[in-house]
């Protein structure tokens, strides 16, 4: 059900997109619909090839859907995509900074593409550098920056036009934990300022921390949508027992299946999903040579249940 454009900053309805020709034609996006409310952080989760990046490209008007409707800031995409992008910021998966320019110059040059006067941009650069924690590096060449710094600069650059909506394609992939945490803090401060974020990610902890709502996508279809907590409550058991050790499998075959609603194997680890962990813990007291971890279910468990454990090419 599409929401009105007063509250939806982005709405996607019945989107279809296929690639390839003739017998090889495959649907990458298959009847996808969702809406973003202003000020929320919405996540798109899915395995490789699910269609997440294609969805972002369609929303930005960089690719034309086969059918369906997209409204961005009230403007029809792709017809008015270029104009709609005036109020949008994009942090892509792969960096595309200008290697020949310094940090400051990258911001200045990019702002010109929006028709922003140099004087205005120069007055905003200190604030943007401060936000990205790159003030000390303002005259550094891109080649001198670490991966985390480049990502922060890309984020600052995406804010040069003070956008209402940010598209972020796997924003913390390849970053060390300190850099990831810093990006998360920055994104939270942007949300606090009332900006809207559409995020794709593989990192379940990132999705759980940042997203108000998320959609699990596989084979271009939406499998599930909702807040992280409600999705977990709706789809999977509340607790997980991970059991490690050489005899884990045989223990599970004897005691696991009867006492847990779902048991899965991954190498030498056994995952027991249950709403009541006491019978399992009781049987583990007597088991020899086994270690275990008892924790609440999280998004990764949800994701693996909905999309399976098999590798996707």
């Amino acid at each position, binding site marked *: 059900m599409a929401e009105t454009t007063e509250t939806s900053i982005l709405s996607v309805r019945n989107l279809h997109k296929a690639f390839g020709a003739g017998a090889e034609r495959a649907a990458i996006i298959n009847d996808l619909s969702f809406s973003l409310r202003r000020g929320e952080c919405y996540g798109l989760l899915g395995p490789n090839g699910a269609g997440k990046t294609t969805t972002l490209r369609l929303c930005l*008007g960089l690719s034309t859907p086969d059918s369906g409707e997209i409204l961005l800031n009230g403007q029809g995409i792709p017809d008015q995509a270029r104009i709609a*992008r005036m109020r949008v910021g994009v942090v892509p998966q792969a960096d595309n900074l200008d290697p020949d320019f310094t940090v400051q110059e990258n911001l200045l040059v990019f702002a010109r593409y929006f028709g922003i006067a140099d004087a205005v941009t120069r007055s905003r650069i200190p604030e943007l550098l401060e936000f990205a924690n790159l003030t000390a590096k303002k005259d550094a060449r891109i080649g001198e920056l670490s991966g985390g710094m480049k990502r922060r600069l890309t984020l600052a650059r995406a804010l040069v036009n003070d956008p209402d909506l940010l598209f972020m394609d796997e924003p913390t992939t390849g970053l060390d934990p300190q850099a990831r945490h810093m990006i998360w803090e920055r994104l939270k401060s942007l949300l606090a300022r009332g900006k809207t974020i559409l995020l794709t990610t593989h990192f379940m902890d990132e999705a759980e921390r940042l997203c108000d709502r998320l959609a699990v996508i596989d084979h271009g279809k939406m499998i599930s949508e909702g807040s992280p907590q409600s999705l977990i409550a709706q789809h999977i058991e509340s607790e997980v027992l991970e059991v490690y050790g050489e005899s884990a499998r045989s223990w599970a075959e004897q005691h696991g299946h009867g006492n847990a609603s779902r048991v899965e194997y991954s190498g030498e680890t056994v995952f027991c999903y249950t709403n009541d962990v006491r019978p399992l813990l009781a049987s583990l007291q007597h088991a020899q040579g086994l270690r275990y971890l008892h924790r609440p279910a999280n998004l990764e468990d949800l994701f693996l249940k909905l999309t399976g454990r098999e590798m996707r090419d």
Partner: protein
Amino acid sequence: MTSLYAIPAFSLRFYPIWRRNFLVWKKLLVASVLGNIADPLITLIAFGYGLGSMLKEVDGIPYIHYLASGSICMSVMMASSFEALYSAYSRMSVQRTWDALMNAPLALDDIVLAELLWSATKSLFSGAAILCVMFTLGIGLHVQVLLVLPVLFFAGMTFAALGLIMNALARGYDFFTYYFTLILTPMVFLSGVYYPVAQLPSWLQLISQFLPLSAAVNLVRPLVLGGWPQTPLMDLAILAVYCCGGFYVAMIFTRRRF
């Protein structure tokens, strides 16, 4: 998103993209200009004085004057083509600059137009540098030689348009070798750069008449030598057809790629 075959949309939005390329060039200015003029200059001096000492005059003109006036067109063609192939490809596929531009409120039409105009600008810079050196050698010291600059820019645009077709089709840098060795280099030998077209067999002379480099040489050589082109409208029309047609085809292939 415009349809594949729509007429390219012309707007001033190309300007900040052109300006970005200009700023990058300014940072590498010396190396760039040196690279663009060193090779043609050495060739000019080597062939001009080397062959010139044996040939004396070609069509009533000292060989080095004859060679210089054709060679400057060849240099503009090479400089513009290089920029529209290797540099544009680097920006498009390696640095992903085009992706960054597409995330801004810019259209693919703006990006390709900016590449065209930038390649022409860069080739004009190198053409102007070669012209200065020619002046110091005593070649081209006539008032009308100033008209050579807009002609070189137009020729630069034409070869950039053709180059951008190759860029749209390329899967890697190696692809461009075919274009340089199979199209541009033969064109040099068929366009009156080193020797008059009249020296060619008649079937090749016929082909020569339709080549953009010939048209450029036919416009530039007379101006450098102190005269006026004999068939200016025809030559300008040939360049215009290659330029506009080339740009349109380049747009279609580029849209298909994105």
